[in-house]
């Protein structure tokens, strides 16, 4: 099998606030080269790099907003988020947990720093990813997978190199905890200094890594530092990562959904008419109601 090499390394773009609780670098789709089609099925990636929030009486966050046509995946590395949605689900996403929400036909939700975390303040670090749905599943019913860290499948690497948390997809025969609509691999490689992990994905899958902690070397030649995003070529299958120091790396690889994309704000559909319908359905309450 041929090696899969890095095509481009992207530095974190200037951060902006989403609501008042998430200070994020947007890699997908606004960074050069990382548009929705190139990165499909990953159509949005906001990265809240490690940031210290001071104590706050009022929890910071994002108020009620809708989504339709895709899934939102929140991966918490530091800090805690409380969420509520219009289907009646609510919960807390703590350190190491993953929330996989299928918005599909439509959902309203809000996300705030969890109360205790808000009161004490502290380090906050998260990834929010949007995974597109194929046309046939865009209007399926919303659902929710709250995956706590102890439910995440973990593959122990040989030679005390560390472990791979398989959130979705498969690593060396170990299947991930989340169910997906199209083939998606999403995993955290937690590597000790000098630890090595090898990965293999089909050549045509869109594949990338985000360095959450530490720094690494890919295929023995390219160094990638903290908070950087590396996009791989769509040829070759295998690559390996060696930790130059203790490192956490988010690995994304998914089969592209080769369909037209019409998107505006929180709606990602296939046609402009479907987008207009999404706005109208939201305006007339078809997504339900959620108190702010």
């Amino acid at each position, binding site marked *: 099998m041929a090696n899969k090499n890095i095509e481009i390394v992207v530095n974190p773009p200037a951060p902006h606030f989403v609501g008042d609780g998430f200070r994020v670098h947007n890699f997908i789709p606004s960074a050069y080269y990382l548009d929705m089609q190139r990165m499909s099925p990953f159509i949005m990636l906001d990265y809240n790099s490690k940031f210290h929030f001071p104590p706050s009486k009022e929890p910071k966050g994002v108020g009620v*907003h*809708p989504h339709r046509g895709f899934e939102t995946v929140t991966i918490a590395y530091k800090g805690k988020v409380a969420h509520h949605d*219009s*289907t009646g689900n609510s919960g807390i996403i703590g350190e190491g947990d993953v929330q996989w929400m299928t918005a599909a036909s439509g959902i309203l939700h809000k996300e705030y720093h969890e109360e205790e975390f808000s009161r004490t303040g502290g380090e906050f670090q998260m990834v929010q990813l949007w995974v597109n749905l194929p046309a046939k599943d865009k209007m399926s019913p919303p659902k929710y997978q709250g995956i706590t860290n102890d439910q995440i499948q973990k593959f122990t690497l040989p030679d005390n190199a560390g472990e791979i948390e398989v959130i979705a997809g498969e690593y060396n025969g170990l299947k991930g905890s989340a169910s997906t609509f199209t083939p998606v691999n999403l995993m955290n490689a937690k590597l000790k200094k000098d630890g090595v992990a090898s990965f293999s994905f089909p050549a045509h899958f869109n594949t990338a890594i985000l360095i959450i902690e530490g720094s690494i070397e890919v295929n023995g030649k390219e160094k990638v530092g903290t908070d950087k995003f590396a996009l791989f070529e769509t040829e070759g299958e295998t690559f390996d990562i060696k930790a130059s120091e203790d490192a956490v790396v988010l690995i994304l690889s998914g089969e592209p959904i080769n369909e037209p994309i019409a998107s*505006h*704000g*929180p709606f990602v559909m296939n046609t402009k008419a479907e987008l*207009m319908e999404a*706005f*109208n359905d*939201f*305006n*007339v*309450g*078809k*997504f*339900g*109601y959620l108190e*702010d």
Partner: protein
Amino acid sequence: MLTNFKTYLSEKSELDETSIDEILNDVRVESLQKGDFLLKAGDVCKHAFFTEKGLLRAFTIEESGKEHIIQFAPETWLISDRSSIYFNEPSALFIEAIENSTVLFISAEFMGMIAERSPKFQKANDRALQSHIRQLQQRINQLLGASAEERYSTFIQKYPDLLLRVPLWMIASYLGITPESLSRVRKDLAKKNFKS
């Protein structure tokens, strides 16, 4: 650049792309930050403002400090105080950017210059004035007599994406209802239309 304004001109006139590009050399374009003002009450309005990108609002402030929103202007909308321009008198309106915006400053001379080149534009402009008056009449009528639900329903047809872009208190202010009534209307609609 200025794609929205180019489309606006090409739909409303028979000017070709070259003439439009020529005209656009003379137009004043400004980038505004959220919170910047284009007009303040007491000043004479000199321009109409075309929203190329972003969102503007026109509003008045009562002596007590309460705001009343007269109009929103998202992309491709024009907003101004026509009577202040025409009668050269101080305006009662504030016009403010409520998102970071790109705005074209359209003077009466600029409009006249295009109309001279394009009879179709002259007609379109007359029609725009008539339709503005029609809108105002409908709005007066609704503010005097329509239920909160009817007002909301007209609003979402006129501005399909604004519910996602402006805080609810601004929408309530535009509709002339309290934020609580707006919440009730939206809750009732969700009860009727949400199938879980």
